[in-house]
């Protein structure tokens, strides 16, 4: 908002106030003089009261308190209530796992001091840190590790830990000695290492409990850098420093999350200095980038948007049609208009931050080439300007979830661009339920996917032909035996250089085949007080923050932040 416009509004606010006063005076007319005086007196008293209240200063903020305003409130503090590594790569600060993700998304030791992996990837041996204590003072031990992984792999609590079956490949967990735990798996999958970031839970508290009803998830006990302090539902959630923490001492003593669903009120809280950090819509950057004492951060994410085309349905079964659509859509325009320029153009499923990213797959926005490709595919212009082949018109409905405005905007840009080259597109909004239950396999949909984790994560299920027809995989029915072989090699080879080559080749083939029309990677935007230092943006996953946004956001390393 420019200063001039702000002034204008302030003026008009004053005028309104004057008008209201006038109205009250008019109201007083015709009533006896003493009544009029009384009313004016009461009004003056009211105004005085308001002004007095406005003058009251707030208690000064504690230097070592970090306040964050979230748009959502977590349901509970179950550290594994969501999907896979997306949940555990940024743990609720109360807990810790054997391993954790660093700023490059690499796995590093946490509760484990070190670990060894066997050559076939079927045996993992973890050496635990010694002297670690639970927040209630009890000793952490290998028994807790065994307890936690038994809970997960048993599948008995799948409604509490929905990704339980990811741990099903663990055949045996054994305590070798009090500080050594050995895991034996029935298959050697490279990305399984990320599963060892699961939060370790206290056996002495949870053993024998009904995990679907326990209030432990409301006031948890863990081994992490912060202890749970208090939670006033609908208002605030407070964590305090754990003085016995085994890792680097956190620099923030008190971590407080407050909840404000409306962005305007979050901006108000940030501007008044009550909170230190918020997440904002990319379109709100302008309001905040020149504000005093506030810095805006644009954090990359692996979340990509694409037109998901059913590869086995006419006309998308022709590779040339998919390629033409991809060339004819102005991706830069989508990035600039829908995402306020915050992000990156996508040609494949890995972003430039990813270690397997292949920079050679980019191709330009080129409507001429698109027209050429469609001509090669046998399409000719019909009487109404729409392309056709064998009497069938090149037209389709493009579905989007009607609750997601950015996907609707993408659908509209796609429609405009494709009609330029003679493809008729009709954007249609549908509810999530309708889309997932009825249209996933058969219709063109504006979708979003992406993973910043191991390259195997998400992509194996998206592109491998053995997942065709399964509810939870390969939504485009894409089938390419070379890609299948490379994906299989990539997840079972432990040689990182070889893996990089394999996944780069996958990207080359997918960019050529365009099973989906990749459009853009988005960024997530945050506004943070300039008193805060130590912020490290890292590649974020698909989907909005986890646990209401306590985790999975720019404050993933809040314990390392410093406040002036």
């Amino acid at each position, binding site marked *: 908002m420019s200063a001039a416009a702000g002034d204008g509004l302030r003026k008009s*606010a004053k005028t309104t106030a004057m008008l209201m006063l006038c109205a009250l005076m008019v109201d007083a007319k015709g009533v006896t003089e003493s009544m009029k005086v009384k009313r004016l007196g009461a009004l003056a008293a009211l105004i005085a009261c308001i002004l007095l209240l*406005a003058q009251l200063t707030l208690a000064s903020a504690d230097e070592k308190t970090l306040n964050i305003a979230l748009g959502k409130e977590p349901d*509970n503090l179950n550290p594994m209530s969501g*999907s896979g590594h997306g949940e555990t790569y940024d743990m609720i600060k109360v807990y810790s796992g054997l391993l954790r993700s660093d700023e490059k998304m690499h796995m590093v030791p946490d509760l484990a001091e070190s670990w060894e992996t066997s050559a076939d990837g079927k045996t993992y041996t973890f050496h635990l840190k010694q002297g670690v204590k639970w927040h209630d003072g009890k000793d952490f031990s290998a028994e807790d590790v065994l307890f936690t992984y038994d809970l997960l792999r048993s599948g008995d609590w799948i409604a509490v830990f929905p*990704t339980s079956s990811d741990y099903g490949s663990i055949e045996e967990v054994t305590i070798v000695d009090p500080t050594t735990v050995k895991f034996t798996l029935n298959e050697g999958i490279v990305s399984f290492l990320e599963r060892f970031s699961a939060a370790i839970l206290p056996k002495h508290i949870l053993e024998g409990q009904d995990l679907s009803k326990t209030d432990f998830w409301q006031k948890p006990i863990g081994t992490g850098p912060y202890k749970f302090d208090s939670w006033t539902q609908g208002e605030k959630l407070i964590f305090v420093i754990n003085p016995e923490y085994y890792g680097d001492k956190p620099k923030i003593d008190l971590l407080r999350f407050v909840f404000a*669903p409306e962005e305007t009120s979050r901006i108000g809280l940030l501007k008044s200095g*009550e909170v230190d950090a918020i997440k904002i819509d990319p379109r709100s950057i302008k309001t905040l980038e020149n504000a005093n004492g506030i810095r805006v951060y644009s954090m990359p994410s692996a979340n990509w948007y694409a037109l998901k085309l059913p590869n086995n349905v006419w006309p998308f079964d022709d590779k040339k049609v998919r390629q033409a659509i991809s060339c004819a859509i102005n991706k830069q325009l989508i990035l600039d208009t829908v995402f306020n320029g915050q992000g990156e153009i996508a040609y494949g499923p890995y972003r430039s931050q990813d270690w397997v990213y292949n920079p050679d797959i980019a191709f330009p926005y080129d409507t001429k080439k698109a027209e050429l490709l469609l001509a090669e595919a046998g399409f000719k212009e019909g009487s109404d300007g729409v392309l056709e082949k064998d009497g069938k018109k090149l037209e389709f409905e493009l579905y989007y979830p009607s609750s997601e405005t950015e996907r609707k905007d993408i659908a509209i840009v796609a429609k405009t661009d494709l009609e330029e080259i003679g493809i008729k597109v009709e954007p249609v909004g549908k509810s999530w339920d309708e889309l997932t239950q009825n249209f996933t396999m058969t219709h063109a949909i504006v979708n979003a996917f992406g993973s910043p984790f191991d390259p195997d994560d998400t992509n194996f299920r998206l592109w491998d032909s053995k997942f065709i027809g*399964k509810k*939870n995989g390969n939504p485009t029915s894409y089938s390419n035996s070379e890609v299948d072989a490379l994906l299989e090699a990539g997840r079972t080879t432990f040689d990182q250089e070889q893996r990089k080559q394999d996944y780069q080749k996958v990207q080359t083939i997918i960019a050529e085949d365009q099973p989906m029309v990749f459009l853009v990677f988005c960024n997530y935007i945050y506004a943070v007080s300039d008193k805060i230092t130590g912020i490290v943006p890292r590649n974020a996953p698909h989907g909005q923050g986890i646990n209401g946004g306590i985790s999975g956001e720019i404050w993933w390393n809040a314990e390392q932040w410093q406040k002036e």
Partner: protein
Amino acid sequence: MDRSIAVYIFRRVLQIPPLLFGVSLLTFLLFYLSPVDPVVAYLGLDTVEKMPPEDIVKVQQQLGLDQQIQVRYISWLERVVQGDWGISYVKKRPVLDIILERFPATLLLTIVGYTMSSILGIILGLASATREGSSLDRLLHRMNYIIYSTPSFLVALLVMLIFAIWLGWLPSSRMISVDEPITFWAYHADRLKHLILPAFVLAVSHLAVFYTYIRSSVLEAMSEDYILTARAKGLDERTIIYRHAFRNALLPFVTQIGLSIPYLIAGSVIIESIFAWPGIGKLTYDAALRADYVLLMGMALFTSFLVILGNLMADVAYTVLDPRIKYN
């Protein structure tokens, strides 16, 4: 007469249990018939999309969603009758605790908002009715249309932008500052400051209805025969308006307030969301989105009980206002 009121109240109290039963049955049916897939609502789409179908079946079993609807309803009813409202499967906390924790915030906001609204409505309605056709009446009447047709989220965002973000006079949202003041007076002053904007928006959103009611019922009363009689007796205009016309005009107004009780208790989703007010309206909305039926059923039971009670109180208030009304 006292005895007849007591009998009336007793009869009405007897009606409460069957009413509540009906409400709970309807709510349960509505929930069952809604197109929302409770597993998707509970786990989130991202998670469900990655899960093998056999896992989803297991989740349904563990949540008890695979049972027949009548089995689920009866087991819920059995527990409620014994005083166990169940545990929210999203929040993993006892439902009654959650409701009672959030209810006071809603009550505070709505009572202050409605009091402001009815006082303003009475003042403006009277001012308008006693000067029918004057320029003031016309001005109020027109402003009334504007206010009535402005959605409250717009009013809320406008006042927040003006008074909190640009002028900085009042806090933008929440019930109390993030850093709570410690001393008694500072604490309550802070609470009061936070109450002003949301209560004002709530007041404005109901002002138009209250104003219209008072204006038209005073006008109606003014044309009654007894007003003519009063005038003929030579009473002065103020006594006529306040003692005779206004008192009779209050009757439909009390009905209107009685009708507003559901809003009073259920809270306002929009105002509570925008001002981050930790009340019951936002809670219900979230519970509905997450298909948390245990919590939803609890909310339905709780609010309908209070609504029935509130309406009973409004009926009793009639007899105080108008001695002619008798209940048999």
